[in-house]
């Protein structure tokens, strides 16, 4: 199904917290330009998996390869610089900086030869796409939850090297207009620049629209992979979600 070498390859990722195994032998490959959904009930280990991919935590076992290069155990800023970027479920914008400055931080960190000027241009472009231009010189602290999520997503696109973008629950609790803006942004970057996405979400409608394939995690393991409709028919998936619903 997937032609060519994978852009992202996680092998046997395992992470324990005391007696709890948060991730158990998790494996996943992402093709260049793919938009993958990552779903699963709460506590399935999705965020841990994202943290292991992006270097916020170190796996007890397993490896992560980005475009063939081993990035396991690298510091988060190195992983970001190599093109594996993420957002957080609870948005971590820099509330004491302006919206525009928030975008410049990742751009300048990457040390692009174009310098501030190119960064300003790119920021202006993203502000337009995300409809945040009127707020560009406000402090990010004044933004609504949805606007913060948009800003956070845009900040990731400011890193010129982005090849894989992991979005952790980008659609949770934001209004439909902002949702559409964000979806358009993701699709634009995907089609225009060939960037791959891994989207952790509970919003099945959006996952169905955006992601040809989804990976299901249950209790720290990968339980299924396929189209959303395929995996939704799997008994263990149904059981996991029903179990969650029952609880």
């Amino acid at each position, binding site marked *: 199904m997937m032609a060519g070498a994978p852009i992202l390859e996680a092998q046997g990722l395992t992470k324990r917290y005391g007696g709890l195994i948060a991730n158990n032998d998790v494996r996943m490959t992402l093709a260049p330009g793919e938009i993958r959904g990552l779903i699963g009930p709460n506590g399935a280990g999705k965020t841990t998996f994202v943290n292991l991919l992006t270097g916020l935590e170190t796996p007890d076992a397993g490896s992560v390869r980005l475009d063939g290069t081993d990035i396991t155990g690298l510091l988060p800023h190195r992983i970001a610089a190599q093109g594996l970027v*993420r957002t957080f479920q609870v948005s971590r914008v820099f509330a004491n900086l302006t919206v525009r400055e928030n975008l410049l931080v990742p751009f300048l960190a990457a040390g692009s030869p174009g310098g501030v000027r190119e960064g300003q241009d790119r920021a202006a472009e993203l502000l337009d796409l995300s409809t945040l231009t009127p707020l560009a010189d406000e402090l990010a602290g004044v933004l609504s939850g949805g606007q913060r999520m948009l800003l956070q997503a845009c900040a990731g696109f400011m890193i010129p090297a982005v090849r894989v973008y992991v979005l952790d629950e980008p659609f949770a609790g934001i209004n439909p207009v902002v949702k559409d803006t964000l979806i358009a942004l993701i699709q634009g970057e995907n089609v225009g620049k060939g960037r791959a996405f891994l989207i952790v979400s509970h919003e099945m409608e959006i996952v169905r629209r955006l992601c040809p394939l989804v990976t299901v995690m249950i209790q720290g393991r990968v339980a299924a992979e396929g189209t959303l409709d395929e995996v939704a028919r799997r008994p263990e998936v149904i059981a996991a979600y029903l179990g969650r619903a029952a609880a």
Partner: protein
Amino acid sequence: MIFSTELLIQTVISGLMVGVLYALMALGITFIYSIVKTINWAMGEFYMIGSYIQFVAVHFLLGPRWWWLAALISMAGTFLIGLLLEPILIKPMYSRPMQRRDDYATVVTIALLLLLRSLAVALGGPYQYRPESDLSVIWIGPLPQEGARVAASVCALLALAAFWIVIKKTWIGLALRAAAQNRIAVQTSGVDVYRLDAVAFAIGVALAGLAGALLAPLFMVFPTNGAVTSVKGFEIIVIGGLGSIPGALIGGLLLGLVESLGAAFISSPYQNVYGFLLVILILIVKPNGLFGERGREA
């Protein structure tokens, strides 16, 4: 107690001038805290290092005319020492799994304080030194001031302005402001937060080193000369609020004024008490300091 308008003006000016230098010290402490989330208890020892470099540079190498160049060298010297020490001493607090980070940092910086003091005694002996100053007395309105003190205050103001420009206008300043808000997000933005820590630590101690260099002709150079000034710095942090840059500036000026006015018009033996009274008052009225916020971190 003698009172006159002239004396009041003189006392206010004198308080503000010393306040600017206190502010420099407090700014260093608060700035390091806002990035590295650690109080550097050895701040006074970097003041001390700055004063020794100033003495050596002025007395042996450059002569009193080049005091400003010596001050720049002192600042650069303490900056470099900070840049070298931070990765060894403070970084393990973040780069290794650790149960009690704050305790670690407290112990490490206090150990550093003792080490640096002993080193000063070992290298320079327990003596007092003073870099020569050929600046003549300057009259500010009705107030005569040591040229060196005026120069120190002016340079402190320049340093505060330079600090402001670096923080507001440069890329490293932007990254530092971002890191003050959220260490993790700045990392996932591709910024090497450990390098940023080292730079922040170095900038903070360089401010102390500069204060030490500027005050050396007045308060002299000896192994524990940083102790009093760093205590003032910590008082200001309580007054202005930990992690607040405007708090450090306003708090510094306020402390300078209160001490100077108290000593002149209430009773002079209790000069150090007025500052503490102010601290206690602030703790009662505004426990987080004038500009402090509860829970700055997201």
